[in-house]
């Protein structure tokens, strides 16, 4: 596909044209942090964001999503996807989207995710500010981000937009783009490489070595008990993770007591009841009863369980869990480095 | 000759618990008591050792209906104690939520608690069948009050974002614009509510007892959020006192039939509430509300306590128009989240605000770590207990003279209590608290 350039002065008009054409989501400021929100004006767009509180998965896999609605007359699917543009996704989040794309489409194709996904044009953007806990440069370094339609890089005087798909190519019509020069393309590449060098944290070993050693540590109860001693089972590490996608399903009635909905909600394997089974007569069996077992499960899932299927670890190094964990114990880079050093 | 034995345990359609006990034998009133047996809750003690940021969150729980007012009075006292002056934006947002609370509570009281009396129904539920539109409208307006307050405070029962130093979260200008539109769109429903009150006005009992009326007052507006203490006597004499001197006005004293203390100032008792505000601040009333007052035939100084409900109807109109004005100013300036103002000292301070039921005082002392040493809260319903008792003392003989039946007397007394819209679970304390520093 092509590489084009747009001057900084023309960029707002481009975003405005996109907003006028349909819903556009992008990073905006939220108090001291950032979040992907529907844009109302180009000024809100903050491409200099470090990391958003929630990853863009919320657009394809909403925190609460009706799967089926029902009433006296029957039941039906609740899906109504709309075409939209998602602007300003960092490459680590694109890699995470690649993973959830695969996981939601393999074996049993889940249209509740895929419909939202397939109606979204994703424009990735370069990382202007590196977040405090990121380690994206050292995790799954050989896995290339795939699922974006175009890649936007801020360079001197403007932006280079490299298109990857027809959808991406179609964006050019909305702004005053001109073909990018070799020098501009090279500058964009350099900007993106430089971002990799600014990560504050780092995994000290390669994917496979990590996978083997972490898995081998499974039985080390003392290790996991110590690591999880301060864990609140709050599931923040799951909820903010771009590659976590577990959910709960609940039926609820509306006030008329006849109609209602079957809804899926984000769930997290760190929460206490996640693997709890009712056995009857009030008895339960919890397959991961201890905090340590739940903490371990998440880490295993990030570092080993899915590697074969995904072609790399199920962690993209965004650092959201590290920063979000109030007890500051969830950081995969620190935990893995500690295990590797032991 | 009348003989009556009235014993109403836990008067209904009021918040909290109060009893009426009246014995009349052959036309002679032997006993006539308004009793408050509410379980004491010890808030003044509970706040000890809590950080200043938590105190309003605790004392808000004194009362679920006036929790916005308790939060504001508490925070004003804390801000006074900590030497904090909030920004103009915070001030206006707080005024706005104060109006929301007044509106919300009055809508509930007029339509759901008081109207059944005037319509001869035991509660609002039978009215669903007979006066469906009145009930639906009341619920719609109640919901409006709820959403209006929630937009500013996060919710109306125990609001969250009002904190010492300002506002922890603010609505967007867009949300405020939408609120303004909704308030204006509600005007026809307000007019309909006023029309209902007007239609029921002939059912308001004729009874007069001139008393003292105490309310906040300032030179700027029909004081709700802030002002000095003002008293007006039946002859129109007014006097102002600074909030810090609230104890000189309340002069609390103990009576045996009540877990709550009584108050008095210049006369035997005084009243707080919508009627007290109306009598004190009529001249500051919004012109639209004045029109409604005229239409409803109420004017200062009104000495019929049953008219408190009518004064509330005037106030809901005032709340809407005053708020539209506040919204215009807020929208014009644009609203932004501001950092909280930090304490400049740690000491003691008092704060007052008007809650739907009248003037409310809080006072706290803090140590140098910002931890609370103790508090004092004097709530409007407590200030009204003594006035209710004096109303009883005048009303019961009048009812006896009119040869009312026991049932009629009971209803007249219950209605009198309800017209004060009392909030008895607020009744938190009973004796003076000495702060130990």
């Amino acid at each position: 596909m092509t590489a084009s350039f747009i001057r900084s002065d023309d960029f707002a008009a481009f975003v405005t044209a996109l907003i006028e054409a349909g819903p556009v989501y992008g990073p905006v400021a939220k108090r001291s942090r950032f979040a992907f929100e529907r844009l109302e004006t180009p000024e809100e767009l903050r491409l200099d964001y470090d990391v958003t509180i929630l990853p863009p998965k919320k657009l394809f896999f909403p925190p609460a999503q009706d799967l089926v609605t029902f009433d006296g007359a029957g039941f039906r699917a609740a899906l109504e996807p709309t075409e939209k543009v998602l602007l300003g996704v960092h490459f680590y989040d694109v890699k995470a989207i690649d993973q959830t794309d695969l996981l939601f489409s393999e074996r049993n194709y889940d249209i509740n995710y895929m419909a939202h996904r397939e109606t979204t044009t994703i424009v990735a953007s370069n990382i202007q500010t590196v977040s405090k806990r990121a380690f994206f440069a050292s995790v799954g370094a050989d896995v290339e981000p795939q699922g974006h339609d175009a890649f936007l890089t801020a360079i001197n005087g403007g932006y280079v937009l490299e298109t990857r798909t027809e959808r991406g190519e179609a964006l050019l019509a909305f702004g005053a783009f001109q073909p990018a020069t070799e020098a501009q393309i090279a500058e964009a590449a350099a900007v993106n490489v430089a971002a990799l060098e600014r990560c504050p944290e780092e995994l000290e070993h390669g994917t496979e070595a990590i996978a083997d050693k972490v898995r081998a540590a499974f039985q080390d109860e003392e290790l996991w008990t110590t690591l999880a001693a301060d864990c609140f089972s709050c599931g923040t590490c799951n909820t903010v993770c771009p590659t976590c996608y577990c959910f709960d399903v609940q039926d609820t009635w509306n006030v008329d007591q006849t109609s209602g909905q079957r809804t899926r909600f984000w769930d997290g394997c760190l929460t206490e009841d996640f693997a709890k089974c009712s056995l009857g007569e009030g008895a339960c069996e919890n397959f991961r009863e201890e905090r340590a077992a739940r903490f371990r499960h998440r880490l295993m899932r990030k570092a080993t369980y899915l590697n074969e299927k995904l072609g790399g670890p199920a962690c993209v190094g965004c650092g959201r869990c590290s920063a979000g964990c109030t007890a500051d114990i969830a950081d995969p880079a620190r935990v893995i480095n500690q295990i590797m050093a032991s | 000759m009348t003989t009556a034995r009235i014993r109403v345990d836990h008067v209904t359609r009021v918040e909290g618990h109060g009893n009426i006990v009246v014995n009349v034998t052959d036309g002679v009133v032997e006993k006539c008591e308004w009793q408050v047996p509410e379980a004491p809750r010890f808030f003044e003690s509970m706040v000890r050792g809590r950080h200043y940021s938590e105190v309003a969150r605790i004392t808000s729980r004194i009362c679920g209906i006036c929790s916005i007012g308790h939060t504001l009075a508490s925070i004003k006292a804390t801000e006074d104690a900590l030497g904090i002056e909030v920004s103009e934006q915070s001030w206006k947002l707080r005024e706005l939520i104060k109006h929301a609370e007044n509106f919300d509570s009055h809508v509930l009281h007029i339509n759901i608690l008081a109207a059944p009396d005037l319509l001869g129904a035991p509660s609002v539920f039978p009215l669903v069948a007979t006066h469906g539109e009145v009930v639906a409208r009341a619920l719609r307006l109640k919901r409006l009050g709820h959403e209006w307050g929630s937009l500013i405070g996060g919710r109306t029962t125990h609001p969250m974002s009002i904190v010492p130093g300002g506002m922890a979260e603010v609505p967007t200008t867009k949300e405020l614009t939408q609120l303004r539109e909704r308030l204006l769109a509600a005007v026809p429903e307000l007019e309909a509510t006023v029309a209902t009150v007007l239609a029921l006005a002939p059912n308001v009992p004729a009874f007069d007892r001139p008393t003292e009326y105490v309310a906040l007052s300032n030179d700027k507006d029909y004081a709700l959020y802030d002002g000095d203490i003002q008293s007006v006597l039946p002859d129109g004499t007014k006097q102002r006192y600074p909030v810090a001197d609230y104890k000189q006005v309340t002069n609390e004293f103990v009576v045996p039939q009540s877990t709550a203390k009584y108050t008095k100032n210049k006369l035997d008792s005084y009243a707080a509430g919508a009627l007290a505000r109306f009598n004190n601040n009529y001249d500051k009333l919004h012109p639209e509300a004045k029109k409604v007052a005229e239409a409803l035939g109420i004017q200062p100084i009104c000495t019929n306590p049953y008219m408190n409900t009518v004064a509330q109807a005037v106030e809901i109109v005032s709340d809407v128009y005053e708020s539209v004005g506040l919204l215009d100013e807020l929208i014009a300036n644009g609203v932004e989240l501001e950092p909280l103002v930090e304490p400049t000292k740690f000491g003691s301070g008092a704060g007052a605000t008007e809650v739907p039921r009248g003037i409310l005082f809080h006072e706290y002392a803090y140590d140098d770590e910002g931890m609370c040493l103790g508090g004092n809260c004097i709530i409007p319903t407590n200030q009204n207990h003594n006035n209710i008792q004096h109303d009883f003392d005048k009303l019961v003989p009048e009812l006896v003279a009119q040869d009312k039946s026991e049932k009629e007397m009971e209803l007249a007394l219950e209605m009198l209590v309800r017209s004060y819209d009392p909030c008895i679970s607020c009744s938190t304390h009973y004796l003076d608290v000495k702060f130990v520093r």
Partner: protein
Amino acid sequence: MSKPKVAFFDFTCCEGCQIEFTNYGDAAFLELLNHVDVVEFREAMSEKTTEPIDIAFVEGSFSREADRARLESIRERAAIVIAYGQCSASGGINALKNHQSDYKQFVYGADAEQPQLDSQKAQPISAAIKVDYSAYGCPVNKYEVLQIVAHLLHGKEPVIPNYPVCVECKRRETVCRYDEADHCLGMVARAGCAAPCPAYGVPCEACRGFVDHPNVPALEKVLVERAGFSQKRAADKALMFNANDLEALS
């Protein structure tokens, strides 16, 4: 089929949870009345009943021995008893005085021992009678209450979360209080409220009680290390709504 009979009762509380019932708006409230008969609701109606009740919502703590008999009579008449609001479910804010021994003297001085001022430790109503379900919160989440009612009307056990408030905070993408140099109890607090406090810029005070197994030592550690609390303030922090549970845990 006659509609289930629902009644509201109040004990030591601020009655704010009852008020939430009036905040549904006309459509939802009137629709709800198509499915239940409200037979007693002192705060809003004069009617009273001595008949059997299908669902009793009991608000307020059990703080006076004198209230036991009334609670027992409610239990006898009611098929389902719901502890309505945190005062009732755990003792709530009223229990904040439980750890003090001088609260009566502090507030009532010389009159502290007068009989009408009788007040023991504030306890959940479950200290006096069996409770079937709890609607947590100070105040309750009125939408959760609707769901509890809907579930019970269909004979289904209500679904009450056993995960912490952080989950709901994240679902609505609220900036964490700890990121704003504040503190919070969300990590040990039972969710179900939809995390309104952090969303409005203030800490979660765990007004719905704790999750089943709160990590209290870790909470104290975080309050000291991240929020800069003194050890004492950290240890006392969760007393506001959880005095009884903290005592039980220690």
